[in-house]
């Protein structure tokens, strides 16, 4: 089920009413209902893949219990590896099988050995990368004794399958989300209103910014050979806003929806395009994944401890694995490596933790220096997105060589100039709103806080109107569903 669909607009109020009005007195029933709702939500796409989630839930629930009882270190490690093997095994099969087969065949043929291996026509289950990492974090944390294994199967099933964040995150940690299923939840007016506001802003980001930018980004990337350098630059910028609007919009809707049910999910995006260096960008972009890799990969590898070579190795590993997590394509690996290259100078000069606070905190405008650094960081990010969006490496290289040509200095020409200009105006309005709200959890969290209610309502109704007026006529799925 898509958040930006009529189905979800009907589904959400039904679940909300049942949850707060019909079974509000019984915590176990509420959790069970969330599991059922989550299964309906996921099954709407393809019910057959519910068996995969169920299998993950069952395996990790029992692994958790066994890890809790077992004291023998070797056996504990074995149990952990069983959980990792099962979870990553599914992920590996559904997401990476064809990639590995293709690359093995290519590698052998490079050395003159022709081998035959068939690829399979595999459907990638929506959200598999997200819930696999979420459930893995549970067994790892139980193994590390950071969390007690749960005996409440329903609560655990609700934690793994919680519908707001099931298919595209935020990738929650058991330490944060699981205990929320144990406690009785009380309806909180401010929290619910805040949730609604965040959903509205998420929809604006997805429908207005991401979907409109997508039309131009797709047009330019799909016909990049015939585009001028200036158009190719615009295509990459459009994609930068598409992916930000799409993914952070999804996270906002997920967090807002969870708030309606009394849950707090972690912040997943923190105004990444206002970052002054790449390290800051990675602290603000897809936070739940970055911190997952930090805690479960980077630190176990040695993190920033050890010599320079070790730090460089670990940085490359984490970025490349993060890239590969996004998809079975060399483009994602290059994208990850490129970000590691960006990150390296900061790490080596120990300036990777310089910009911890949001830019120009408490001020209206940034300084000239801050503006310059933000633009440079944005430029680097946009450049890396070209690899992320390209069909393959050749496409990315030809796209980039197209940019660095004499046509870079020509005036961009769109098939629908008026629509392109309108989209650019909407993006500028969006940037201004994001800038003004950058000190909150999401842009419109505090906008209008002190206004009279009618004025505040006009502001929200205007957002709804803009969605109705500028939404593309065809419904588009979220990009991160494919990861």
């Amino acid at each position, binding site marked *: 089920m898509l958040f930006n669909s009529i189905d979800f607009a009907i589904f959400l109020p039904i679940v909300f009413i049942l949850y*707060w009005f019909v079974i509000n007195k019984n915590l176990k029933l509420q959790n069970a209902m969330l599991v059922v709702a989550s299964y309906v939500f996921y099954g709407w796409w393809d019910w057959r893949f519910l068996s995969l989630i169920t299998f993950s839930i069952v395996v990790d629930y029992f692994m958790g219990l066994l890890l809790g009882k077992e004291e023998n270190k070797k056996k504990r490690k074995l149990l952990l590896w069983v959980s990792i093997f099962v979870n990553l095994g599914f992920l590996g099969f559904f997401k990476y099988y064809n990639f590995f087969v293709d690359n093995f065949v290519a590698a052998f043929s490079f050395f003159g050995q022709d081998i035959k291996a068939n690829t399979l026509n595999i459907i990638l289950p929506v959200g598999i990368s997200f819930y696999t990492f979420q459930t893995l974090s549970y067994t790892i944390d139980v193994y590390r004794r950071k969390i007690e294994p749960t005996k409440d199967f329903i609560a655990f099933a609700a934690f793994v399958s919680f519908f707001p964040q099931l298919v595209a995150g935020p990738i929650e940690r058991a330490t944060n989300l699981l205990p929320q299923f144990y406690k009785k939840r009380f309806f909180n007016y401010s929290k619910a209103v805040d949730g609604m506001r965040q959903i509205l802003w998420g929809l604006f980001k997805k429908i207005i910014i991401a979907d409109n930018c997508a039309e131009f980004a797709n047009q330019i990337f799909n016909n990049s050979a015939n585009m001028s350098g200036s158009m190719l630059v615009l295509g990459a910028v459009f994609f930068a806003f598409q992916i930000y609007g799409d993914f952070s919009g999804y996270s906002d809707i997920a967090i807002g929806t969870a708030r309606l049910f009394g849950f707090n999910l972690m912040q997943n995006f923190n105004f990444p395009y206002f970052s002054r260096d790449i390290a800051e960008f990675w602290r603000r972009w897809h936070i739940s994944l970055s911190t997952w890799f930090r805690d479960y990969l980077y630190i176990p590898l040695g993190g920033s401890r050890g010599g320079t070579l070790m730090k460089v190795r670990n940085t490359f590993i984490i970025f490349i694995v993060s890239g590969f997590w996004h998809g079975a394509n060399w483009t994602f690996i290059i994208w990850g490596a490129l970000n590691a290259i960006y990150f390296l100078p900061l790490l080596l000069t120990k300036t990777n933790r310089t910009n911890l606070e949001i830019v120009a905190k408490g001020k209206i405008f940034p300084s000239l220096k801050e503006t310059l650094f933000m633009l440079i960081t944005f430029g680097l990010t946009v450049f890396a997105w070209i690899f992320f969006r390209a069909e393959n490496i050749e496409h990315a290289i030809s796209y980039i060589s197209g940019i660095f040509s004499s046509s870079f200095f020509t005036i961009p020409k769109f098939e629908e100039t008026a629509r392109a200009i*309108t989209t650019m105006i909407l993006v500028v309005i969006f940037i201004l709103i994001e800038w003004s709200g950058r000190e909150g959890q999401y842009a419109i969290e505090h906008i209008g806080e002190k206004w009279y209610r009618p004025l505040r309502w006009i502001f929200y109704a205007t957002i*709804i*109107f803009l969605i109705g*007026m500028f*939404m593309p*006529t065809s419904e588009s799925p979220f990009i991160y569903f494919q990861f």
Partner: protein
Amino acid sequence: MKRFILNTVLFLLFASIFYIVVLNLWGYYLPQSLKPNINYRIGSYGHMYSRLSEVKNYGEVDILFLGSSHTYRGFDTRIFAEKGYKTFNLGSSSQTPIQTKVLLHRYLDRLNPKLVIFEVYPEAFSLDGVEASLDIIANDKNDFQSIKMAFIINNVKTYNTLIYGLTRELLGLNSPLIEDTIKRADKYVSGGFVEREMGFYQPEKIEEKEIVFQDYQLKAFSEIVEKFEEKGIELILVYAPIPRPTYERYTNAKYFDSVMQGYATYYNFNEMISLNDSLHFYDSHHLNQNGVEIFNEKIIELIESR
């Protein structure tokens, strides 16, 4: 909780009123480029306004033509009149069964045809029906059928245009239009036909595609067929001639034929008459007047030989 529900309901009410008011002001004052999701154009392409104005006072007919632009550009009412048939052409651009149903609901009883020739084109079954719905909303008086159509199509552009159109009608903002009979290369002919200035087509290869039936289009189509059966009106389904490259692009054309044959008497004219892509068509879809004459003569021959 009560406060939350109450405020949500109040806000939704407020937002709905706000939406309607701003939508109308926006639609009225701003240029088309700034209102991509309102497309209210009275007297637009295809002479729909003239056709719908004429049908209201046309009286009963012998034959009624229904379908897409292949219909209003393919069935010349003058040729049929010469043979003694009073006909009306109720085709419209990209008309899908959903719009056909609306038009029949409004005009079938008034026209009371003895025979209906329903032009069926594969795309009409796979389209979402947005374009044709906007044509009807802008050029005809809206009623409950328009609202029902909007809900079936479920597209923001259709909703917005309908809200805008309904408000304009309620406030009496639409002054009667006298649409030019000749617009660019098109000439409106009494009875709903549109004659295109003579032109010739340069055929080119067209990408292959599969015919996909949208469930809701097929459902509307079945209901239309049932309606004719109930009223005892004879129905003939016609796949009008199109240039060869356009016809051959469909990889499952035989399947389309078999589906249509299951509904009523069906003639696929692409297999029945031999036309020249350059000499008898003016673009990749439509017959020029030479082609129209050949096609219509053949139809009349078939009708008379029944």
